[in-house]
């Protein structure tokens, strides 16, 4: 139960940081707005089975959408990374996911290099799908590529900083 509360609190903090801070500071450049709220999905414990993971991802995205006033845009990208997460973890880690218990993806549990790949791939997929959907509505290919790479770099940078400050798994033990 305490685990559930921990995740809910974390979710609220991440979303609040995204909505009240990142969305409000003047953008670094006209098209760079970093997104970080979705790391909530990346940080869920390993043992989560697929169906609940999808539903939680959908709820996460929809709640973010309420604040962005883009119903469905963030939900679609969150559902996509929620769907791909188990496949990627299986690919990167030799162990069965059920053996991990309540531990979370982290630079200690996964190893620094693997965790880096996991973070980078997921961020890229999330941003790619998000910006692809925007691009499909408005066109302009170079704008799309520029926005994708710039936004991904800034987001990953922020996520790494947050990750360095928070030591998640040690508190659990």
């Amino acid at each position, binding site marked *: 139960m305490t685990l559930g509360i921990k995740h809910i609190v974390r979710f609220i903090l991440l979303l609040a940081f995204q909505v009240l801070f990142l969305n409000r500071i003047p*953008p670094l450049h006209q098209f760079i707005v970093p997104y970080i709220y979705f790391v909530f999905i990346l940080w869920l414990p390993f043992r989560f089975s697929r169906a609940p993971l999808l539903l939680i991802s959908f709820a996460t995205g929809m709640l973010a959408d309420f604040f962005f006033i883009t119903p469905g845009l963030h939900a679609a990208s969150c559902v996509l990374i929620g769907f791909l997460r188990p496949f990627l973890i299986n690919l990167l880690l030799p162990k069965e996911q059920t053996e991990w218990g309540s531990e979370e993806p982290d630079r200690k549990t996964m190893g620094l290099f693997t965790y880096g790949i996991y973070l980078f791939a997921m961020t890229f997929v999330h941003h790619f799908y998000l910006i692809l959907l925007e691009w499909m509505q*408005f066109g302009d290919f170079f704008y799309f590529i520029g926005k994708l790479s710039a936004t991904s770099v800034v987001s990953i940078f922020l996520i790494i900083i947050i990750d360095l400050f928070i030591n998640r798994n040690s508190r659990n033990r």
Partner: protein
Amino acid sequence: MRNIYLFLLRNSVLILFLILQFVSLYSLFNFNRFHEAALNMVASEIAGAVYRNTDKVESYLSLQSENNSLREQNARLLSLMPSGNILPDTGVTIVSKTIRIDSTSVAGQFNYLPARIISNSVFLQQNYMIIHRGREQGIEPNLAVVAPDGIIGTVVSAGANMSTVMSLLHRQSKVIAVLKKGSGLGEISWDGKDPGLLNLRKIPTTVEVNKGDSVVTSPYSDKFPPGYTIGIVERVEKDQETNTYLLWVRSSVDFNTVQHAFVVKNRLQEEIDQINKTIIRE
């Protein structure tokens, strides 16, 4: 039949994934087309409650600059006081901004309802604002929203106490505009890049346009009060194919910091709508 069940069971996660994708994409594209989703009503009330509280802090921090802009607007309004006006002979002339309510009183055609902007964005492709006024205060979809310095957008959906406003910084936003010196009728839109620069298209190249010309709302728009400031021409380019200008207009409103707005209600809107309807029917 059993095989179908087995297939569904084996692929249940994939199917759930596809269903959720469909739901999100459907609501995304549907919302953009009709600007009205039941979801949006709920969303603006939930998000609105959060934004309302953070807005209290933010508005305190920018009291100084807000005071200045309100003082400037007060000065402008004082200069418009009727004591300084010469009344035209109403028997002959039509005063375009006033209408008769009954035989003894005259009122402005446009009614300004003050509203606070509690949430705003400038960096998305489709930017919306949330204002702290709703149906219960007389806000309806399709009303114009202006700031003291210039126009801001259009109400797209009204909740009980909050409404969503489509900002000028929205890829689907279109407002009819004219040059202040009188000639040329064009359309203001936004290309999704710089939040301070709007595009003005459809003005024919026969009209002379210079850098620094003022752009205002057109007298033909039924929503926006005529002659309200939009911005100043910053760059002039000619589109050879269509023989029109492509003008970049520096918006007079700073969309990053705007906090006070007025929702504009046209008292003659019903009449205008009715006339439009009869034209279409005939």
